[in-house]
């Protein structure tokens, strides 16, 4: 099959070695597990559907996905007392995921799990997505224990944090309130 691209450059070594990977798969999976992420997005879409049926902006997806995956909820909390400074999650991950979601949307559309209801002029974040029946079905069929837990997590987050530009900003900038500015 085609060349594997890693890090943006195709190295000669890769050519010679007949498609062998530079990184071991186990580590690659930590950063770039497409199928897994796809499933997660599908799960999120299903969770979002609970509250409100209809279209969802990609923005919203990004928001909740990042909250869950990268523990960025810290920035939305008012208290930062018990905070271990060495474990601050970086808002950069939000932006990284922004890139990945393009692929995921393409795949989801290919499998007919979603419908993309926008035209070419709209920006990525403003694209409207609708969950299809087959998307729902696929989700239900493969609702493992793990996925179920994830689903519950998402529901909680959706309840806890409202999706608005203020919150979104907080995540993006990574600024959080400390005790005294409370």
């Amino acid at each position, binding site marked *: *099959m*085609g060349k594997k*691209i890693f890090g943006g450059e195709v190295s000669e070594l890769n050519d010679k070695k007949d498609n062998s990977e530079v990184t071991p*798969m*186990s580590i690659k*999976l*930590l950063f*770039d*597990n*497409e*199928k*897994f992420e*796809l*499933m997660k997005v599908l799960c999120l879409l299903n969770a979002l559907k609970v509250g409100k049926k209809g279209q969802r902006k990609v923005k919203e997806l990004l928001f909740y996905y990042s909250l869950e995956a990268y523990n960025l909820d810290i920035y939305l909390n008012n208290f930062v007392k018990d905070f271990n400074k060495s474990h601050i999650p970086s808002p950069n991950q939000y932006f990284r995921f922004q890139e990945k979601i393009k*692929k995921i949307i*393409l*795949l989801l*559309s*290919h*499998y007919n799990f979603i*419908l*993309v209801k*926008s*035209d*070419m002029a709209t920006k990525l974040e403003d694209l409207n997505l609708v969950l299809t029946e087959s998307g729902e079905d*696929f989700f239900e069929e*493969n609702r*493992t224990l*793990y*996925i179920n837990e994830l689903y519950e997590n998402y529901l909680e987050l959706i309840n806890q944090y409202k999706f608005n530009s203020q919150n979104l900003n907080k995540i993006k900038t990574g600024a959080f309130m400390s005790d005294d500015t409370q």
Partner: protein
Amino acid sequence: MILNKLILQGTLYRRTIEFNNDLTIISGETTSGKSLVLRLIDYCLGKSGKIDFNVQTELGDKCDQIFLEIKIKDEIITFNRFLKEKQNKIRVYFCEYNQIDKYTPKIVELREAMKILMNKLEINEYQLIRKKRNSSNKQIETVSFRDIFRFVYINQHELGTHDFLSKKDVFKARKNAHAFKMIFNLTNENGEAAKRRIVDIQNEILEKKKEIYGLQSYLTDLGITDYVVNNLKIDKKYKEIQDLNSQKKEILERTTEKTNSNHENKMYIKLKDDLTGITNDVFEIKNQIKSLMLSIESKKFLIEDYKAELLEVEETIELNYKLTIPEQGVECPLCASKVSSTFQEDDSAETVLTKIKKQLLNKIKLVESLIDKENKLIVHHNDELSVLLEKQSILSEAIHQYSQKTDVPYLSQINSINVQINKLIKTQEELKEGLKLYNKIEEKRKLILDLELEEKRLNDEITDSKSRESEEIKIFEYINKEYKAFMKRLKYEVDSTTYIHNTEMVPYYNGSSVYSHDSGGLLECMQIAFLAAILKSKKSGFAVGHPGILMLDSISKYVGTLQNEDQSENKIKDPEVYEEFYKILSELSKDNQIILVENTPLEIYSDLYTKYTFLKGARGLIDDSANEISLDQ
């Protein structure tokens, strides 16, 4: 001048050798240190060069410095010179040896010290101007006390040889005649040099006066104005310190009577030591347990991470079946263009994923087993810990019981006495400082007087050159007469060829000088007769420049000393000569100080005058049993 005593001192050793005012004989075996006594006197009086401690090993081991107490006219001075360091300086204390802690010494170079001696003896140093070898430049040589001292101390390698008066050392030998003149005050000092010297003296006197002024104002600043009162205070403090010391002693004696002795104290000490050991071990183990627990905690976190990863991998394996990514690519829903495949698809995905899963499981197992091991180790440590803690409490109890029984001696009392003693010692030191200052001022005053005397002498010399010639004739008449008389006593035929040369200033016999004859016995007799003549002339007022001391090492060398009982008429006269030496020396010692070092001195004189007999080895000059510093001081 009279030598009172020679003190050899080291940190743990001190020995004092005292000298009689008349004749002192030091006898003893070879290598016992007899000659060393004379050499040390020479060293202390400014001999250049160091003492070789490879040869004088006992001296080097035990001693660091030498003191020589001298009496000059009415003044007592102590010279001090270090043996191993700062050997080019002499420290002059203008006091007796036992008083030196009340004085600050004058630390001077060797030459300066010689000058001080000359001044005290009231003779002026003499400067020779001579041409430098192989050039037309001139240089100044000083004839000093060291040159005169060659007539005072004759060591065993010079007596009876051609090296008499260090003849073999050209630089020294050429000053001998001048030294002889200086002894008899026959030098014709260059008037110019004398005048220059006078100016120097006057400047020095002014300097000293300024220094005295400075010291006095310092004294008043310290608040010590009255010498006598100061002294009394010092003595009083000394007595107070003595009292306190005896009090302390008494208390200590009281307590050691009560408590039974070393035995119990040892046990107490052992208990305490054990207890400290155990406490340390406990601390160690607790630390180890802490670090183990920390390690376990972090491993637990690691396992959690692994488990989360595991879940994801399992999910991925599941999804791997369910979702397949198309090879040809995907169509964009908006613009319907084909997106080339940059998707992950791997035929071996499944196997890889399972492999990964296995690896993770292994990792988790590994970490869990490590945690297990560490837990076991913690348990083990905890057991150890409890044993130690038990021991600790037992020991603590034991010590507690023990200390309740023993009397801890009146510690607080002794402590307070110690504090008082320290305070007193401090005040005493301060008062002593004042005393030293005072003595320094006195010393400088005396020095001024000496300088003034020297000035007068120089002035006299300048005005006084004519009468010198007649003096010279008288002197030579006298010493020739005495020299001949002594030679006769020593069994030599005396005639006009026996004399003291009036320019070479050395003795002659049979028309040949003391540096020409060969017989050791003859040389020795000539030399002793010569020196004796000079000494004797002191009584008649000549030889003022001679200190009035004679130090001789081994006069028996060239003279047969054993009396052979059944001798006929032509018996060997040597033993009689030997006896005559002693007679002469003891006569001279009535008015001069004579120190004689001899292996086996003549019996009669030995009984009278032998002050020290040194034996080989441990009973020689460096004798531990004669050490004046006892260990419990």
